[in-house]
């Protein structure tokens, strides 16, 4: 069988990680990579069996990939993905997918019409703990959901002298909302669903001049449930990026992070052999191994799933452009709410 020809566009941190992971897949050949940095491409040229290009247009016309991984700064995702669709190329696009909801919706329509595989890099959908949590919620473990709290913390931006490059502006997809809150928002969509209204949004500058370093917002649903998100990427008390989610329902409460799920139940659950009161499911009893590990099982699983979809082996993609567009719609509503109501 001929190998799937992969092109990688953007050789920053994610491009470099994805390359190593997908390169381990037996059905795949990473054939081409595009990045404007001469340093990166010269180095890759020297050590790796890959064709390098300065821009994606040349990559498309010369390397003719079957599928691409788009890992550029977010503002470039739209023109790249659009061009790929026109050429009939399947696309995995890093989060936050695009910088505008309108462009995201256009890409959804384009890929649907062309019948091409499309996936967004919301990696939590492939995380062992959150997948388990989704399964538990789908089986009504805490009854009807009433309240939730989705939080993310890291010590990514801890100095004020670094507002340069694409991360410095919203137009280019920089800031804690696009880069980090997008994960927490998607996690809410994955586990609970998309909100009908955003309110109480606030953005804080801690070190960054032009973009926010912390954000919070309240999500409201027509069904009556509600919840909050809070994201802070300048919190030095966190050694590494941490997701926390808490869900309160009529039947109990769930608390999860990447390590475990704590479950309080009002009544025992026989299906999952959970007691009344507190139970803990640790990652060590939940995880499923992956064939090759670089940076967490979920990173391998999401790219192998993309390949499964390209090969027609998966019934449906688990994180499509529609999910990417949904997160962007919420992001735009948070910005809008903050502009209209967030300032005193």
């Amino acid at each position: 069988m001929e190998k799937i020809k992969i092109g990688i566009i953007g050789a920053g941190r994610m491009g470099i990680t994805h390359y190593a992971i997908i390169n381990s897949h037996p059905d795949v050949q990473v054939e081409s990579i595009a990045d404007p940095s001469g340093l990166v491409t010269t180095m890759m040229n020297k050590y790796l069996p890959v064709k390098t290009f300065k821009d994606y247009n040349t990559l498309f016309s010369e390397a003719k990939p079957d599928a691409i991984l788009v890992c550029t700064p977010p503002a470039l995702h739209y023109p790249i993905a659009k061009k790929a669709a026109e050429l009939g190329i399947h696309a995995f696009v890093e989060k936050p997918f695009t910088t505008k909801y309108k462009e995201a919706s256009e890409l959804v329509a384009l890929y649907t019409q062309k019948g091409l595989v499309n996936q967004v890099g919301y990696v939590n959908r492939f995380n062992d703990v959150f997948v388990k949590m989704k399964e538990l919620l789908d089986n009504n473990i805490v009854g009807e959901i009433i309240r939730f709290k989705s939080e993310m913390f890291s010590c990514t931006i801890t100095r004020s002298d670094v507002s340069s490059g694409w991360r410095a502006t919203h137009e280019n997809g920089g800031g804690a909302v696009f880069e980090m809150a997008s994960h927490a928002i998607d996690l809410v969509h994955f586990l609970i669903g998309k909100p009908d209204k955003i309110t109480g949004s606030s953005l804080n500058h801690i070190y960054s001049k032009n973009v926010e370093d912390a954000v919070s917002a309240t999500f409201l649903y027509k069904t009556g449930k509600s919840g909050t998100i809070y994201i802070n990427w300048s919190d030095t008390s966190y050694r590494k990026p941490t997701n926390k989610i808490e869900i309160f329902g009529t039947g109990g409460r769930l608390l999860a992070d990447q390590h475990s799920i704590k479950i309080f139940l009002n009544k025992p659950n026989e299906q999952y052999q959970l007691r009344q009161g507190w139970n803990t499911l640790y990652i060590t009893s939940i995880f499923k191994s992956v064939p090759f590990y670089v940076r967490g099982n979920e990173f391998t699983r999401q790219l192998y799933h993309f390949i499964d979809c390209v090969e027609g082996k998966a019934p449906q993609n688990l994180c499509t452009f529609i999910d990417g567009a949904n997160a962007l719609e919420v992001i735009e509503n948070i910005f809008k709410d903050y502009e209209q109501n967030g300032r005193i």
Partner: protein
Amino acid sequence: MRPIDKIILGDNQFFGINHMSEEKAQQLAEKFYDINNIFKVYQNAFDAGIRAIMLNSNDRAKDICNHFRNNKSKYADISWYPSVPYPHKYANLVAEKGIFPAVNEILFKDNSTMGVLGMVAKGGMAVFTKDAMAMMKMLVDVEMKMFKELDIKVVFLQNIITDLILGYGVKEVFYEYCEHIRKKYNALPGLITQNLPYLKAKLEEWDIKEVVICSSFNKIGYLMSPDVESYVQTAKKNNPADYQLMVMSTMASGAIPAKDAYDFINQQNIQSVVFGASSERNIRETVSLIKI
């Protein structure tokens, strides 16, 4: 190949790292805020017969190294197993600045020497690309500074780096790293990995031998890709003269009771166990259970 110590005390517990629970990690971070509490644990380990320390090159490791260096006569027979780099420092810097500015900062932050980017601007890109391997060695040397004058047995490359380069399949990096460690530090090269079977197969294919490989090894397959059985078979077929296998996460962050964990480990063809514990009782118990 010089045999490595059978039992080595690790460092995760000192730095607020616990794969199973954030709360537990936080408690440990508080407990070890006072560095004297770290030294007490080391003393307990020495009293239990341990003579080897594995330590990641993070900021706190500097103070630990200073203590041992300043009291060298007291700790004459202790062997060191440093691991480099401290991954989160790099991850954050790269996220903030991009890959090359991050490298630049790490290499030249404390030096008056012109930065890499300055070199690149001056001498063109060739300086960098021609010397990618030299750059890698410089990065290792920057991290290794803190271990100066300590008796170093193995220098490990952290798994995030090992497995990234393994994914790329670039032999040169592994070869050059191993040679550098042998020559510059008169120590054995070590590679930490989450993909033991695949790494060992590639090293054999590339004829890179006399390497210490460190990986998780436990009966439930936690942090072991692709699975337990492949690890057991890889160890079984291994000749320790080519590769010494050091195992970690033997109790899978506490998911496996100590006795069960080591009943399994003791049956494997492995050369060394590195474990993290902070109470005297746990250290003594673990030492008594390891029979490899």
